[in-house]
């Protein structure tokens, strides 16, 4: 017993000593394992610090880009809608419409590798392998005419790539400008006349405010209660199981194929329209008629008016080659090439009725 007490006392002593050894600390937290640090420490620096072993070619990058990036960034990095433009824009920075791309603006190539690897594709982040990231980075350089089509990027040649706007930045110098120097504000008779030179209402780009209460003092309790319930009713999604249930394995495979779609489309509980309509109930519905979606192309609306319905045949054709199947569709997706993917995504959509 006394021996046990001695041991306990010794242990207490050790703990006091080890606390003292952490001169500035409380001894909270625990050591990070090397594996944990490796799992989270994925950042890359301009000097190449952090780059993993690996390589990827323009050729490989083109295929990955078409499948995973072109849907938002466009086939040539020109961008779809308001998604970021990746290529071009050289010699525009001093113009009234600067186009800031990897080629025209980004000072460091490491930023591309780091960002693509940590945050892209949008909606499926950190799914690219190191080699795929090298390949995509090489392809983005190619889109910007900075390398030729034979180029292969690797950790070894990474820091040799010259970025056109590497010298385009200067440090914060606000304190050296006229704006900073102003110190004695005028209080009286500061100017002779004042003219209105611009008005927001001319542009008319301010969002309308459906619940605006520029208060009248006359709103009734009923009105207030009515504005309170403008959330979609949760019960409206009651599912009707009429058609034969799709193969669960295909549905599961379809879920992973759907990652290619989810930057623009949502599906499942609470799905709402994004760039494209939500796809609950899309299977079996007349083309171009998702309730509340207002951004259909004329071509898509016309296809629906002519009686086209989203069934297995029409979805297969459309998802294989959207632009050829409905000419003029706004869907910028390049298309699914593998039959397995097509069958899986259709099963997945079928598994999500209205």
């Amino acid at each position, binding site marked *: 017993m006394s021996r046990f007490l001695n041991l306990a006392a010794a242990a207490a002593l050790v703990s006091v000593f080890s606390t003292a050894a952490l001169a500035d600390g409380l001894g909270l937290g625990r*050591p990070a394992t090397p594996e944990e640090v490796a799992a989270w420490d994925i950042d890359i620096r301009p000097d190449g610090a952090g780059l993993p072993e690996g390589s990827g070619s323009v050729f490989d990058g083109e295929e990955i880009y078409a499948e995973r990036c072109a849907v938002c960034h466009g086939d040539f990095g020109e961008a779809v809608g308001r998604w970021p433009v990746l290529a071009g824009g050289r010699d525009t920075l001093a113009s009234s419409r600067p186009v800031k791309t990897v080629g025209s603006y980004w000072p460091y190539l490491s930023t591309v590798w780091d960002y693509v690897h940590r945050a892209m594709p949008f909606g499926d982040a950190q799914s690219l392998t190191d080699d795929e990231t090298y390949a995509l980075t090489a392809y983005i350089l190619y889109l910007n005419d900075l390398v030729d089509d034979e180029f292969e990027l690797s950790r070894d040649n990474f820091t040799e790539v010259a970025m056109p706007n590497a010298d385009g930045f200067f440090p914060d110098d606000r304190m050296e400008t006229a704006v900073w120097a*102003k110190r004695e504000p005028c209080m009286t008779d500061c100017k002779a006349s004042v003219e209105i030179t611009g008005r927001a209402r001319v542009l008319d780009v*301010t969002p309308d405010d459906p619940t605006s209460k520029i208060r009248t003092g006359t709103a009734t309790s009923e009105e207030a209660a009515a504005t309170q319930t403008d959330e979609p009713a949760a019960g409206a999604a009651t599912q009707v199981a009429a058609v034969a249930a799709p193969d669960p394995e295909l549905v599961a495979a379809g879920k992973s194929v759907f990652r290619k779609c989810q930057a623009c489309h949502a599906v499942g509980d609470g799905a709402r329209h994004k760039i494209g309509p939500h796809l609950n109930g899309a299977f079996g519905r007349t083309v171009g008629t998702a309730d509340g979606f207002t951004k259909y192309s004329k071509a898509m609306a016309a296809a629906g008016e002519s009686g086209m319905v989203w069934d297995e045949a029409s979805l297969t054709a459309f998802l294989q080659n959207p632009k050829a199947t409905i000419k003029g569709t706004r869907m910028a997706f390049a298309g699914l090439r593998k039959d397995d993917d097509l069958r899986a995504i259709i099963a997945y959509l079928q598994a999500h009725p209205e």
Partner: protein
Amino acid sequence: MTETTRTSRRHFLKGGLIAGGAMAAGPVLASGDPAILEVQPWANQLGEGVDARPYGVPSPFENHVRRRNVEWLTADPVSSVNFTPLHELDGVITPNGLCFERHHGGIAEVDPAKYRLMINGLVDRELVFTLDDLKRFPRVNRAYFLECAANSGMEWRGAQLNGCQFTHGMIHNVLYTGVPLRTILAEAGVKTNGKWILPEGADAAAMTRSIPIEKALDDCLVAFAMNGEALRPEQGYPVRLVVPGWEGNMWIKWLRRIEVGDMPWHHREETSKYTDLFADGKARRFTWEMDAKSVITNPSPQAPILHGKGPTVLTGVAWSGRGTIKEVHVTLDGGRNWHQARIDGPSWDKSIHRFYFDFEWDGRPLLLQSRAVDSTGYVQPTKNELRAVRGENSIYHNNGIQTWHVRANGEAENVEIS
């Protein structure tokens, strides 16, 4: 905006102005005001009991007080921004549910049981903390504003959005509870060559920014509470970084890791974005501090004067990323003459200040502006003074003086003046 909604909105506004006028004129019945003479339902019937609203929400009469976005600004609502309704607020603290949101990969729903904060890089001990660990460090309470670098960014080329919610609403002011970052860094022991930190988020954007070690050891906080309760998911639950006075993008939400290094990382959000492009095509970078700025929130386009002439309360907010606000000046005549506004409420470092100017409106049109002077003596510039230095391609860091044109009927519009 469609023709119908525009018309109906005008109609609504007009109706409001008439009704407002009637209210100002007093009771309409000879015998008195029906609001007094008649027994109201809430005076007659019992209301809901204590458990009806276990987490309270505002009165249904306040349903119009909401964050709003500007759809055309971004490709998608996932990587987007909405705006604090400044014209509906008073005092200096922004309620948690109205703090504007800016996400780059949507709202991460982090399970606090799986929350970890890692410190790695140039430290003596690479460490991992749980949320419970963080709550065992001595903590502090500090109120700070958080302003997005792009606040007012749509106004560089001229008056564009008609409402202070949209022109100035990428800001909130919150009382944080958290642990000084220096305490946590000391636990890991920063090596002498550790000159920068890289905080990183756990969200699908894995947001990162490089911050110099001087700032990290000065006033940054690792915060887990806002205005007395746990952080909201959209503000980084369970843990965010607080970087007082510096652009909002650096206040990493869903903070999962802080790396210590010897040079900056030059990641996307500090090169491709959040850099200030000048007219000559060169760009200023690492513009961290948010310079002194102010805006009149009432009256403003979304908050017209409804009561007609007579005693009028003009109010607004002012802030500086370099200290406190020393003075706010207000002009009613487009900058010909300025008046000292009254600052009321707390004057905290790098926190929103509330100002008032109480005046007798004669019913004639007004050109309203406010001008902040901070504790360094910096005077908020006009938009044209900023443009003279920076051109119109900047996007970020627009702290120029805002003008509202108030018409005789009390309506207000975002304008620019000579």
